Structure formats: C-alpha cells, structure tokens
C-alpha cells in the first residue's frame, strides 16, 4: 500500500501517543478512516459531530492528555463548533481534525465546503489549513504542541481531501519547535519573594483555586502550600477537586451560584493568592465590590488572564508549578487561629441560613445518595443548569479530575458525550453523567453510542419537566411570569433508554430514591436513572445579577 497524506496524519497521532479518537466519517475523511484500519488507534463512532468534540473534551479533562476529534467537511465541521468553543472556554487541550474539499475546489462553494478556518478563528488557539502534503507533518506536530503549550486549548487542522489522498513519504524526525513564545516574560525570583512576603504578613489570607491548577498538574504543590501555611481556600467551578473537597481548609465554591461561606470569606480576607483563575464574572459577581479588603496576587500562565477584569497588585506570569515550587520554601508556617476561628463562626452562621446545608433541596440530598452508593473512584460529569449547581455544590470531589463540567461556556448537552470520553479515557473509574431533562434532549442520540459500545456509564436524568434554572430566574426576577420553560412530562425516558438498548428505571426523589439508585449501581453496564424532582426545587443562596457576592438571596421571598 502506497503511503498517502492520511498515513502522515496517523503517524503524528501515534507520535503523540494518541490511541483514541472520536469522530464521524464523510466522503472527505475517507482517506483517514481507511488508513485507521491499519493502525492501533481506536475510533469511536459518535452519533453527532458535536458529541465527538465533547467526548474528546471529556477524554482530555479526565486524563490530562490531548483529546482528538475528527469530522468531515461542511456540516461535519460546523457541528464541531459548539464542542470546540466549550473546550476553548475551559482551556481543554484538543486537536480537532476536519476534512475539507480538495484544494482545487476551495472557494468554489463546492459540495460540503465551508470556511471552517474563518468560523473557528475566535474559538481556537489557532487553525491551520494544509495546502501541501510536504507541510502536513510539521503542521500536525505544531498543532499538538500548541494545544498543550502555555494555556492549553483547542487547535483545528483542516485537511483537504486531495492532500489526505496524495502520495508521499512518511515524515522524518520532528525538527526543533518553531512555535514562537510571544509575550512570555521571565518572572524574576523577586516577584515570588514579594508574593511570599505579602502572604506572610497577611492576617486573613485566602487562596482561590482555579482550573489552571488541574491543567498544570499542581495539585500536590497547592495542597502543601495550604497545609504548610494554614491557609483556607475557595475554588472556582473549574477548580473543584484540585484539592480533596473534604480537606478542612476548603470553604467551597465562590461566585454567583457559590457557597455563602466562600463568598463571605472572599469579602473579609486581606490577601488573596489566586492560582490559575481568570476571575470570570461567574466567580466574582459584581466586580467593583469583589474582595474589597484584599491585596491580590495572581499566578497564571496566560498574560491576558492577569488583570483582565480586576486590578492585580502582585502578578506572576508563568507555570503554576514553577511558581508554587519557588513559593513554598518562602512561606512561613504560621498559626492563624484567629482567622480560622472567625471562619468557623461564619460557617455556622451560613449553615443556619440554609434549610438543609447545601441549599439544593431534595435534588442535593438525592445527589449525595448517588455519590454514597457509587464507588469511591467515580468521575462525575455534570451538565448545565440547576443540575450542574446541585452537583458541584453537593458532590465531594476527592480526586483532581473527578468532577467534569462545562464551566465557561455552560454548554447544555455536554455531560452525556463528555462522559463517554471520560469513560474511554479512564475505563478503571466508574463514571456517572448527571443531567437535567433539558440538557439530556440536546445530545440524547449519544445513548446509541453508549449502547453500541456497551460503555458502563450511569446516566442520571434529573427530571423536573422544566428548564429549571431559567424557571428560577423567571420566578425570582421576572415576577414569576413563566414562559417557554415547560418541557412537559409526556416523554418516558426509561422507554427511550430501552429503545437504545439501555436498561433503566424511574424514581421520585422524595419518595423512594434508594431502590432506583441501588438498581443503577447493581446493574453491570450502562444504566439510565430518571429522577423526578419538584420544579420548585431551586438552588439557594444565589447572587442576583448586578449584585456583589455578599448580597445573596436565600429563598423566593428574600
């Protein structure tokens, strides 16, 4: 068999240690799909290209490796877009491969031609179109390097069909990197010394852990810092699990849907060490009133993340591991009994305001029961909406990559396909996808993928018959004028699952949830558990739009 461009694509995938890709074929991808038969790379055939991108994203988040998805030209490529944007917002390392019409047809409005380079410009780190098979290997290599380097993210490589089919030699050794490192300034040791001094002098310090801690594999270092210097910490949604949620210094999630305690302590602290977070509006609420008493130090590898929304007194641009390694020996082991006592008093006050602790009502209790029934080594993949907030506020993430969700983009329909990627990437771990009924509809076709590959994923559909989070907003801020949020109750999700070859059952959470949870846990292979909750079961406290993070409301009448 003669070597063609598609063999080079596979050669570089192998070089990069890729053994799984998520994709969907079309006429233009066929050179690759044909040659994949000769390679050990496993190709998971999804039922929609959007799901292929989410699966590659879930795979990358679960493993820390680069996720790869593959789609054909035109609609195949455009269907990836939501998945690529989701990965971009949460800095997932991903390489998206799209086939393209032959170079001779480019720009002719050929069948299934689309300008995917133009479409994906704002949602990729970069996108490449290959015009000569001689550049194919170097472009593919650069795409992988770029996806992993600095702040990770998705990179797209557009591959015209004739390039994939053209005869060539396999690529030689990879040359030196040609990737430029713009705007990368070397931080001086003095900057870390300044941060250490400010931290040591502070009386009420706080660490904010963002998603960057996971991306930098800096879990051990951040835990050492917390425990050495007795510093309490809060997390952003992307930072959850970087340190075991049960750690005594954990004050919870900050932001508009965060924990009362976490938000109140942000407001009271005199020093913040922000690690791998970009201070998104979800985390800060009203930016002008965020952490009014704090001197803020920020460590981030992306210079654009520093000072983007908030003034930073002590910036450090660089790898979190380098920064924490340098910082650790300079930090004093200091008792902070007064500060920690004050926090305990705040914790008690905060707990009193919320009826049953989590503020997630019957749904929170149910998710807690699901976690108790699942093995310790379980990865949970939350969708978007109330189910996401219930999950991230209730699930005690023990391991760094054990809680996966679409934070920045807030993509409904993410959890089912992403859980496929997470399961394929970490087959030894149990995987549970938690979704609402609304998000479930958005990629419901992936039940077919789960069933076809018999992936033992537990799918929990929390069904309130409504778009719950939007319902809560209409209830609280639109004078309970409900509109366009009723999804009805006519669909039998258990029958739907059965139609896809997946067993399941239906429970009402305030009646007898345990029987359904047990059936799910005791069934080998995939399972769908439909859990009916009251549509009036919201999440509290929340911060209304345009308010600061201590102006939380605690119930409908607040």
């Amino acid at each position: 068999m003669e070597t063609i461009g598609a063999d080079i694509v596979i050669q570089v995938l192998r070089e990069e240690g890729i053994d799984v890709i998520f994709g969907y074929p079309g006429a233009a991808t066929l050179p690759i799909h044909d040659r994949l038969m000769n390679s050990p790379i496993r190709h998971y055939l999804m039922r929609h290209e959007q799901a292929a991108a989410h699966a590659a994203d879930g795979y990358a988040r679960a493993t820390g490796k680069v996720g790869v998805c593959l789609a054909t030209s035109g609609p195949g490529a455009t269907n990836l877009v939501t998945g690529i944007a989701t990965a971009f917002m949460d800095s997932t390392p991903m390489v998206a491969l799209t086939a393209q019409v032959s170079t001779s047809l480019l720009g002719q409005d050929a069948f299934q031609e689309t300008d995917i380079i133009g479409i994906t410009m704002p949602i990729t780190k970069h996108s490449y179109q290959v015009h000569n098979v001689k550049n194919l290997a170097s472009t593919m290599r650069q795409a992988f390097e770029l996806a992993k380097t600095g702040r990770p993210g998705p990179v797209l490589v557009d591959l015209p069909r004739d390039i994939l089919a053209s005869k060539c030699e396999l690529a030689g050794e990879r040359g030196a990197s040609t990737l430029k490192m713009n705007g990368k300034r070397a931080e001086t040791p003095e900057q870390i010394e300044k941060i250490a001094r400010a931290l040591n002098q502070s009386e009420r310090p706080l660490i904010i852990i963002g998603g960057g801690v996971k991306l930098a594999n800096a879990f051990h270092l951040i835990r050492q810092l917390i425990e050495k210097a007795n510093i309490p910490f809060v997390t952003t949604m992307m930072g959850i699990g970087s340190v075991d949620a049960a750690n005594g210094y954990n004050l919870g999630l900050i932001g508009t849907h965060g924990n009362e305690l976490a938000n109140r302590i942000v407001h009271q602290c005199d020093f913040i060490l922000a690690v791998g977070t970009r201070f998104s509006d979800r985390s800060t609420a009203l930016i002008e009133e965020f952490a009014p008493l704090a001197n803020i130090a920020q460590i981030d590898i992306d210079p654009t993340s520093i000072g983007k929304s908030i003034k930073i007194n002590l910036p450090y641009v660089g790898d979190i591991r380098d920064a924490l390694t340098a910082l650790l020996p300079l930090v004093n082991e200091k008792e902070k009994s007064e500060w920690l006592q004050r926090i305990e008093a705040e914790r008690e006050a905060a707990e009193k305001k919320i009826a049953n602790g989590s503020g997630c009502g019957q749904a929170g209790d149910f998710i807690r029961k699901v976690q108790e029934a699942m093995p310790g080594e379980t990865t949970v993949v939350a969708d978007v909406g109330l189910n996401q907030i219930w999950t991230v506020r209730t699930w005690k993430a023990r391991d760094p990559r054990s809680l996966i969700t679409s934070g920045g983009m807030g993509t409904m329909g993410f959890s089912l396909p992403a859980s496929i990627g997470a399961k394929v990437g970490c087959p030894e771990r149990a995987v549970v996808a938690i979704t609402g009924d609304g998000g479930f509809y958005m990629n419901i076709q992936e039940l077919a993928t789960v069933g076809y590959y018999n992936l033992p994923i537990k799918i929990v559909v929390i069904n309130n018959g409504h778009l719950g989070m939007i319902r809560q907003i209409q209830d609280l801020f639109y004078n309970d004028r409900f509109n366009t949020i009723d999804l009805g109750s006519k669909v039998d999700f258990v029958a739907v699952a059965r139609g896809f070859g997946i067993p399941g059952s239906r429970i009402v959470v305030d009646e007898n949830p345990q029987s359904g949870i047990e059936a799910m846990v005791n069934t080998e292979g995939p399972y769908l558990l439909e859990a009916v909750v009251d549509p009036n079961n919201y999440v509290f406290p929340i911060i209304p739009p345009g308010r600061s993070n201590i102006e939380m409301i605690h119930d409908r009448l607040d």
Partner: protein
Amino acid sequence: MTVRENTISILVNNKPDVLARIAGTFSGRGFNIESISANITRNPEITNIIITTIGDQETVIKLEKQLNKLVDVLEVRDLTDVSSAQREMILVRMKVTASNRDRFTQIVDIHSWKIVSTDADYCILEVTGDRQEIEDSLSLLETIGMEDFVRTGIVALKRCSPQQIG
C-alpha cells in the same frame, strides 16, 4: 483613564488569514480600527501592519496582549508614547476651472504639493503629512474645487532602533 488615539505596529507572518485574525481580535474585544496600513518589510515573508484605534491605555494594553497570543503575530509595538515619525497620504481629485486655476496653482506652490496627473479640466494631487497637516489640507482644498479624495492609513516608524528603546 484618558481615551485617545493609539498607534500600534504589528509584525506578522505574511499569510492569507492573518489580517482576518487581527481584525477579529479588534472587533471581538469591541475595538474599532480607525485606520490601517500594511505592507511587507525588508523580509518579504513578514508584513508590518499599522493600526490606529481609540481607547484608554489600560484597555489598549489588554488588546496588545491578545494580539500577542496570535500564532502569526511576531511582535506588537505600541508607538503611541514612543518618539516616532507618523505620516499619511491623500490623493485628491481637483476640478480646475478658469476661475480657480490661479488660486489653485498658488496654493499648490506654497505647500510644495505634488501634481500626480493632469488633463484639461482635472488634476490629481498628492499630499503627505501628519494627521493634522492632512486635516488642514483637506479643509483648504474643500474651498477650491476638491471633488474626491482617498486617504491611506497612518504609517509610523520609531525614530531610534529597538535596542535603544528596549
């Protein structure tokens, strides 16, 4: 923060999609490109794009950081507060009649403007200068029979070498 016009010089790889990425970075972050000029440098594989945009300094620094993240952007220099020569050029089509001919010739002579092309009733004039000179010239020409003009973006060059400025 004072809002002002900023001059940004961007060195990029001379590739088809680079300008779209730069324009997208401006528009995606809510900036308007007031003027733009681009051409190759001594190295024909590298293009220098000079853009002027209105914003306060803090916001423009954020924009420059975003530009720096683009793979094909090699260097971003803010020339706003740097000693630099800045020029733009206009080509002006004038209707020349018996009544304005003398005054027109006199003004062109005084300013040492260059006449690029002439025929019986029209001529095309070339004027270069900094922004204020161009504005003044246009006001003047408006009064003596200007029919149309085209105007380039600003080109700007630092007065001393990058090493000296650092």
